[in-house]
């Protein structure tokens, strides 16, 4: 049986259908989840997709973070369920305190949309085990508020514990501290990143297929667990 991966749609989510498509292309069973639901429909993992939930009102992700479905996501994440936040999903995970730090407006003060080179810093998470440490990949990056910030203590802890998962290379596109593009929680089951793996799963629509490893990683993890 292929793993069931839920994709939450918030009002203003943009990339939920791309995430659903990517899961299917990579061999999983996508399950669409509604933000107002208080049930995860028995999924094995959850993706919070990119977009502009609630129009980015107040702060990106600040209102979505309190959507009914998020209570379940937080509970399941704390219990070890793999959760991936992409772009707006990353912002929601930070607002929900499932991940430390915050995302602020790009220092360049423009919306950035490009094929971004990244270095994989850790393969020790449920979403990145199919990468190798030090591997160079390219993923689509598109955001206005992707500057990762955190206080010195948090940054030191992230670095010391190997929880910086991806770093921007060949230029920092948004002023993120320590060139951070993605991080994980202590347990490694919750991962957030600004670039978009779901846009990089086939030749037709992405510059690379480097996004596929995210899905194969979590499928491996879930299959091994079963």
């Amino acid at each position: 049986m292929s793993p069931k991966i839920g994709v939450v749609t918030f009002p203003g989510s943009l990339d939920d259908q791309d995430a659903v498509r990517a899961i299917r292309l990579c061999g999983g069973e996508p399950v669409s989840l509604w933000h107002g639901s208080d049930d995860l429909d028995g999924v094995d993992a959850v993706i919070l997709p990119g977009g502009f939930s609630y129009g980015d009102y107040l702060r990106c992700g600040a209102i979505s973070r309190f959507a009914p479905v998020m209570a379940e996501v937080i509970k399941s994440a704390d219990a070890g369920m793999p959760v991936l936040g992409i772009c707006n999903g990353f912002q929601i995970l930070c607002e929900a305190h499932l991940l430390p730090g915050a995302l602020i407006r790009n220092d360049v003060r423009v919306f950035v949309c490009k094929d971004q080179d990244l270095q994989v810093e850790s393969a020790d998470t449920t979403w990145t085990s199919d990468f190798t440490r030090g591997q160079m990949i390219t993923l689509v990056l598109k955001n206005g508020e992707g500057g990762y910030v955190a206080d010195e203590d948090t940054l030191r802890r992230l670095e010391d514990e190997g929880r910086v998962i991806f770093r921007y290379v060949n230029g920092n596109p948004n002023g993120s501290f320590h060139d951070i593009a993605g991080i994980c929680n202590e347990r490694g089951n919750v991962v957030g990143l600004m670039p978009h793996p779901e846009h990089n799963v086939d030749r037709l629509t992405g510059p690379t297929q480097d996004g596929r490893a995210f899905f194969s990683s979590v499928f491996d993890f879930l299959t091994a667990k079963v």
Partner: protein
Amino acid sequence: MARVVVDVMPKPEILDPQGKAVTGALARLGFAGMSVRQGKRFELEVEGEVTEERLAEVRRAAETLLANTVIETFDVRVEPAPASAAEDTDAEVSDAEDSGAEDNGAEENTAAENVAESAEEAELTAQAG
């Protein structure tokens, strides 16, 4: 109804790209020597009396939703009632007098209480500030 204002500002060590853009625009317009940091102001119309408990609740609301304390600081204060609201209160008192309240002393007490409340509010403002 009282108005409680929550001001939210980016922490000093956090880059403020919006403030930077505004600073640049001001300079281009000839407003020299002005450096801007941009925040948010929330106006909460709060039902009932603004007690210290109620203010604590507003602070909790600010911490929970209005501000992200990872990157922002917030300040809660009670805004003095606008002049029109004060007139309304007076009108109510005089209405009561017109209705033939026998004990004028009681009405005076009510007015005195109102004043006391205002003073209390002012004190709360000072504390919150």
